[in-house]
């Protein structure tokens, strides 16, 4: 039987959760015995061509591209796990939720103390993903099956969860692995 496939993505996050995935150290050798990595920044596979058992989502939903990526993960993965604070509650990027989007853009591109923008234009190229009005937690956009809190979740948390899920066992984190920081 071929190994189950796992896909990962980093949306509105800092890649710290992916660093934490790599931080499982030599257990990564055990992991590739258990799974094949499919679409993921780890192997740079860009499109889904196969069904995946597990999708690991880092980051919240901040722009239209994030929405599309998240929806394609939902379509192509049996189980979606929100990995880390940003995917669960928006975390640091969601600090902008206290400020209207227009004010955020004004501060960043027009009136911020270090801005030099003689044309007075806010970037609006079709190539640039369109920002949403606020940052959304993943489970407000698609159904999420499990949550791994932490900023980032520790390598032990990710490892414990993956081993449980891949062996069809319930995902129960021990006390010291539930952390919000």
């Amino acid at each position: 039987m071929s190994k189950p496939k796992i896909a990962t993505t980093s949306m509105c996050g800092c890649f710290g959760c992916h660093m934490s995935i790599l931080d499982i150290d030599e257990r990564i050798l055990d992991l590739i015995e258990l799974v094949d990595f499919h679409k993921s920044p780890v192997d740079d596979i860009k499109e889904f061509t196969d069904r995946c058992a597990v999708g690991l989502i880092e980051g919240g939903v901040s722009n239209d591209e994030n929405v599309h990526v998240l929806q394609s993960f939902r379509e192509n993965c049996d189980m979606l796990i929100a990995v880390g604070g940003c995917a669960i509650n928006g975390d640091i990027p969601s600090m902008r939720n206290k400020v209207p989007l227009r004010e955020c853009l004004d501060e960043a591109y027009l009136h911020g103390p270090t801005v030099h923008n003689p044309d007075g234009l806010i970037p609006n190229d079709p190539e640039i993903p369109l920002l949403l009005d606020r940052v959304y937690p993943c489970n407000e956009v698609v159904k999420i099956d499990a949550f791994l809190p932490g900023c980032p979740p520790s390598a032990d948390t990710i490892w414990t969860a993956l081993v449980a899920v891949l062996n069809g066992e319930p995902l129960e984190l021990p006390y010291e692995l539930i952390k919000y920081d």
Partner: protein
Amino acid sequence: MSDTFTFTVDGVEVAAEPGQTILEAAQNAGIYIPRLCHRDGLEPAGACRVCTVMVDGRPQTACNFPASEGVVVDNETDQLLELRRDIIDMLFVEGNHWCMFCEKSGDCELQALAYRFGIAAPSFPFQFPADRQADLSHPDIWIDRDRCILCGRCVRASRDLDGKHVFDFVDRGPAKRIAVNAEARLRDTDADVTDEALEVCPVGALMKKGTGFDVPVGRRTYDWEPIGSEIEKRQTQE
């Protein structure tokens, strides 16, 4: 003492004296009833409902409900755990709790209760309130209203322990917020960095400046053991 009487908590017999609350008597017997707005040494307020137990089948707040002879108290039932979990979830989503940069993280009672209840993510949508103003005016203390859970501990401590009445609530319902006893700013009150009011805040809402992140991750209060285990240990030692 002749006045001592007993009642049960989850079937365990607990001794109490007249005037004790259910929470106090249970705690003396090594039984932890979760609480958030209550703290030993403060007058109970019954504000948060986290300590809700069933007393002879009716929900009551253990922090201010007097113990009495022979009552049957349920504490750790599935129904009560779910109710407490929901309260904690609601407190998280109605404020802005960015734990990853909060100076209180690891020592915060709200977070610790979420850990104890095994909450990986709240089950309600996040509100991201935009109207919670911080007060950074005081040289040694600041108020971060994003994190305030309206428990009223600072109100009671400032009034009853510090004898100052620096804090109180204004407005009602969703607009209710903690305010200071001055026109607008904390620096215009007689609040001081040595006030008890600062020590009692369960979350990172009332903080001392210049002390954040003093304790490294791994050595903070709730890094390894759930909140309440210090009380539960009393039971196992006896």
